[in-house]
């Protein structure tokens, strides 16, 4: 109804303008309104469309705007190389070996000479075994990390195999493109109108990458701390620190599996959820009269102008947000699970 009213108003206004222009030109009087017409209704919208919306569309289509969409599975599956910790590991071992040898020798002497009470001997033995386990684990820690990484990678891969990657890619694509279409639709009459959705386009393009790279950075740091964590975990006084390090390492490793799970469940939900009414919107807003827009949009969609609907947009947004939400949920949910 409101739309109809606007249509009438604008049609009237356009007729008036045309008549005025004709008559004024006939009388040879320069019109201000003509320039306003050209400026605010034709040139500036065109500039907005061409200078702002089109480059972003190009960026999404041909540049790295949709790079996350293109290879999200590779990015999520990526883990930092385990060779990175080797120098740190060597330094740690260099420090630890003399200490360890000293301790072992002292314990041996203790067992040999002052083995008075059986429980004392038992304690010494348990200490010895602990030391040896720690030593083995630390010297094997890069292998250990590699093992954990491969487990979580395998898990992630098999989770991805629950649905087709194409569907997930389609959903992500739909989210980011739908936002761009929406912002273009809003941007052409007034730039501030599309500010929120334009911001969301950039959020969708960048924030998943930010989260994943944050994961990688934190994981690298924890990987370097991992042997130290093992060492501290076996020292009763410093157990809590070691526990925290190991826990955080495991959590941040398995976040990738949960990201995959979130995407998979988004895909499942997308394939099963239905809306009662699923409206469409097409990024064609070049005429002040919405009716004409819709007509032209209906005409142009046959040659595939950007069109989005509520399902695609909503689930695409949910997919992007779920990537962002998963680490928070994980870190909150999986606290303190080591003994």
């Amino acid at each position, binding site marked *: 109804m409101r739309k109809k009213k606007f249509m009438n108003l604008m049609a009237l206004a356009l007729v008036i303008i045309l008549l005025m*222009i004709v008559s004024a*030109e*006939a009388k*040879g009087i*320069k019109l201000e309104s003509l320039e306003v017409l050209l400026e605010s209704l034709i040139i500036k919208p065109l500039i907005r469309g061409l200078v702002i919306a089109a480059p972003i569309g190009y960026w999404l289509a041909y540049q790295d705007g949709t790079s996350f969409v293109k290879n999200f599975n590779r990015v999520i599956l990526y883990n930092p190389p385990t060779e990175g910790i080797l120098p740190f590991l060597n330094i740690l071992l260099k420090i630890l070996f003399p200490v360890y040898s000293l301790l072992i020798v002292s314990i041996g002497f203790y067992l040999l000479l002052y083995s008075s009470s059986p429980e004392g001997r038992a304690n010494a033995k348990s200490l010895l075994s602990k030391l040896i386990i720690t030593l083995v684990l630390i010297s094997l820690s890069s292998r250990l990390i590699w093992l954990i990484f491969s487990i979580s990678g395998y898990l992630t891969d098999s989770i991805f195999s629950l649905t087709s990657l194409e569907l997930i890619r389609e959903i992500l694509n739909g989210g980011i493109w739908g936002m761009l279409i929406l912002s273009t639709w809003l941007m052409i009459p007034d730039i501030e109108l599309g500010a929120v959705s334009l911001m969301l386009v950039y959020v969708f393009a960048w924030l998943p990458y930010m989260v994943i790279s944050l994961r990688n950075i934190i994981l690298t740091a924890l990987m370097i701390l991992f042997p130290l964590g093992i060492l501290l975990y076996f020292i009763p006084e410093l157990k809590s620190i070691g526990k925290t390090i190991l826990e955080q390492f495991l959590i941040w490793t398995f976040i990738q599996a949960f990201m995959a799970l979130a995407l998979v469940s988004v895909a499942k939900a997308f394939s099963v959820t239905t809306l009662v009414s699923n409206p469409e919107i097409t990024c064609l807003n070049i005429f002040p009269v919405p009716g004409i827009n819709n007509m032209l949009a209906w005409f142009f969609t046959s040659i595939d102008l950007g069109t989005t609907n509520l399902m695609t947009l909503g689930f695409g947004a949910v997919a992007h947000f779920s990537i962002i939400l998963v680490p928070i949920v994980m870190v909150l949910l999986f606290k303190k699970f080591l003994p």
Partner: protein
Amino acid sequence: MQREDSQRMWNKILAIFIILILLSSSVSASIIDTIWGLITKPLKGVLKSWEHVLKNPKHFIKHWGKHFAHEELEEKGERIRTFAYVFLLGLFTWTVTKDISENINRYILINPDPLHEGVKSTVYSFIHLLIPFYVLALVSLGVYILFLSTSPKGRSRAKSMVSKLIIGMILVTISPHLLNFFFTLSENVTKNILTQGEEEVTDAVGTYTGVMWKSWFLTVGAIYGVNALGDIVTETVTHATGFSISQIKKHHYSWGTRGMKGYWPVKVLGTLDKILSKLKVEAEPGRTIPMLMLSITLFIGVYGILAFRYLMVMFFTLLFPFTIFFLCFDPTKKLGGTLLEQLLLWTFVQEFYAIILVAIGTGMIMLPEDLLGYGFGIWPLTISFFDLAACFTLMLGPIILFMLLRKLLPPL
């Protein structure tokens, strides 16, 4: 069928009307001529209006450039509006800084006066409100003692509760005086702190006012400085392309340009004149909303928190009889404890404020000079990070201390 008929009829009528209108303006002239003219004239006019554009595109560019800049009409308004904005913001800053540097101590030290007759009467009306509660509590206790108390232990507890209630009654009746004593105590402590660190306090307030002034300077710079730079650049560019003579000629100060246009001094003079006059033009206050927000946040952060503190103290002052009652009646002890704790803490916020002021002042005095320069903004319009940090400490420090002390207090 009917609708199509009416449709066709309407189309016909429309056509008739259009023809009539076309004919209408040709009552005085010959028909064919006018109709031909009506068809050709507009086309001719349009062509005429665009042919000069086609001849010299430079003019076309300038024309549209002027259009994308502000209209002549709006320039007048712009000058007045921008100046008014800067002036009013400066006035606001001036009054706030003056006010706060004059009587920050008063604002910190003020406490609600429990002996003020309005407050007193309200408190006493609350005490009247409390009487049925007291009766209820006593009656229930009596019933408990008489009938329900099986064990002597419980009876003794009930008796102690009765005595507590009696004490509570006495305390309630003198509660305004108690509060008055307490408030004077805390005021004296605060006064001592403030007098201990006199110059620290003045230094901290100086930092605060300095930041407010700096934000005003930034506003002025953002409004005028940017335009000045932009105009210089545009003028040099137009000189390089060299068709600004006409602009100088058209300029309302045409003293330098009459008759001897084209010489470089004239150009330079005209350009300077243009820049100086342009400085007031095209300034957009809308682009200084961050600075405005900073000023408003600083204002609210100090005034708002102090006023809010006063109101909260008043709130718990009015609740004080209830507090005592809740404290003295065992089942609601916890609630009363919370209320009392709140009253103490909100009253102590003034001490916190004094402490924070002295701390900021000390920090500012101890800070090496060369560090103070670091800040954001273009030289000389920079706000030092330390000053900003000091201001935000002034705003949030009391609240943080409040929360910390709330954790430290023993559970009542």
